[in-house]
């Protein structure tokens, strides 16, 4: 498939935004349920939510460039019963509002307990809003992943690994950004986030490699014989119905050499996984100050660029059966 930059930015940015929110909420939960010493950093949640919403907004903005008729985009919420794309269009603003509400609740200090759990933990408005936003975030992850995962003709995408990878890659990048953010604001949470970011980056790495191994073994279901219905091993295309390019040659081919695709693969393995892992492990050894911010910022930037490359590869890797009809002009 042809990797469109609008979609690369959309999926990576909203993934990072969702991951960042999950990081914020994880931090809050750990503190509120006394799994680690409590700190009072409302600013961190407010700014974190703002960054998360900003990422989602830029992603949404990028997605408009993918549409031929963006002015009609509102119509795309209509078919949520059957279309994952439609479901994403609904889930995205809900997630955005939920995260914004979560940030606003922190901003207005809605942290007095509304009721108590039997264990004596106070449940406040931020926790409830955060819970709702978490559900919305996961719903959005599933919708985004399923847009690609549900198309059975693209066998490279038609696997639960697609959804799992969208969740893991988004979460990993979000936790890395949270590490950088918390280092910048000088909160005590930096090492906590760095450890989680290492965990998610490693897990995402394992699952991404798993999907690449799976895809290497794929046997295309369709071949020239079933495409034109002539049983012969030597079917060659001589004409495609026009001498020049068409939508079919532009949309479904990445148009790059195999070596370029392989290079991108190594770039994303290096930038999205190895570099941030090394930098994050380094950051664990730094107690505080400027340097931990610089290290974690580089980790976040490298990982984001790596994820852009990863998404490029994700598209380029998928072979559409329609390509059988567009092999050569000659």
């Amino acid at each position, binding site marked *: 498939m042809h990797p469109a930059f609008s979609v690369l930015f959309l999926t990576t940015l909203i993934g990072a935004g969702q991951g960042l929110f999950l990081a914020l909420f994880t931090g809050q939960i750990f503190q509120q349920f006394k799994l680690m010493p409590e700190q009072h950093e409302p600013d961190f949640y407010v700014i974190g939510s703002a960054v998360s919403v900003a990422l989602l907004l830029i992603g949404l903005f990028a997605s408009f460039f993918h549409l031929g008729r963006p002015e009609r985009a509102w119509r795309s919420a209509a078919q949520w019963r059957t279309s994952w794309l439609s479901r994403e269009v609904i889930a995205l603003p809900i997630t955005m509002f939920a995260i914004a509400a979560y940030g606003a609740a922190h901003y207005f200090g809605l942290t007095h307990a509304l009721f108590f759990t039997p264990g004596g933990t106070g449940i406040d408005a931020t926790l409830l809003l955060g819970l709702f936003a978490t559900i919305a975030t996961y719903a959005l992850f599933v919708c985004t992943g399923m847009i690609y995962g549900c198309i059975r003709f693209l066998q490279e995408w038609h696997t639960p690994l697609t959804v799992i990878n969208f969740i893991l890659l988004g979460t990993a990048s979000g936790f890395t950004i949270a590490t950088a953010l918390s280092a910048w604001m000088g909160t005590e949470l930096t090492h906590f986030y760095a450890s989680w970011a290492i965990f998610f980056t490693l897990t995402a790495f394992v699952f991404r490699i798993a999907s690449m191994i799976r895809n290497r073994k794929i046997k295309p279901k369709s071949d020239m014989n079933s495409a034109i219905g*002539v049983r012969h091993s030597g079917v060659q295309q001589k004409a495609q119905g026009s001498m*020049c390019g068409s939508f079919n040659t532009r949309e479904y081919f990445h148009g790059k050499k195999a070596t370029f695709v392989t290079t991108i693969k190594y770039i994303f393995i290096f930038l999205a996984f190895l570099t941030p892992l090394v930098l994050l492990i380094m950051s664990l050894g730094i107690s505080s100050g400027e340097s931990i911010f610089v290290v974690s910022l580089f980790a976040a930037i490298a990982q984001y660029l790596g994820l852009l490359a990863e998404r490029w590869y994700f598209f380029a890797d998928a072979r559409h059966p329609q390509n059988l*009809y567009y092999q050569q002009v000659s």
Partner: protein
Amino acid sequence: MVDKNPYDANPTGTFFNRVQTFEIGTYPKTETVHFPKSCLHCEEPPCVPVCPTGASYKREEDGIVLVDYDKCIGCKYCSWACPYGARELDEQQKVMKKCTLCVDRIYDESLPEEERKPACVMSCPTSARLFGDVHDEDSEVSIAIRENGGYQLMPEWGTKPANHYLPRRKTRIKIHEDELERVDNPLSKEERKRHNAPGEGPSLDDMTSW
């Protein structure tokens, strides 16, 4: 239907029906297959449920798959979900286009009844295309599919295209080598020489059977 840069570099356009050419086998044992490709109006169209706006739809009454150009947002998602590459984005109107089965022609009552057919069927000089109801067992198309081995493209995906293709037709005769020359030809030169020996000439019984 857009026709972009028709006389310039990189011309491009939207096609409802592309006639492609394939070569089968290696020279000198080759055959050329011309292969028209359009939307196949699948009975289980995977392109329809994925459309977020409902612009792509399959008509209840006749099964024709259409795009509502006023609703389409040009997200191209439906084209990913068609294994045949039948859908093409119109580069000027920025909406998805594909074969409509000439839905405007086939129901046009101002046309004489025999002309209420898709333009491609009407114009094919060799009548290679047939048009009719695949659900009516006695229609011309159903009979052709049944009797002449009509098949569907990429049946492995379960899309059940309504459009079928008929196998190429060839006239073949089978001749064995010994059929090229009669072994028992009494009129051959050799036979005549042999039979013309005195007393061994052919009698009427050799030439006819009573």
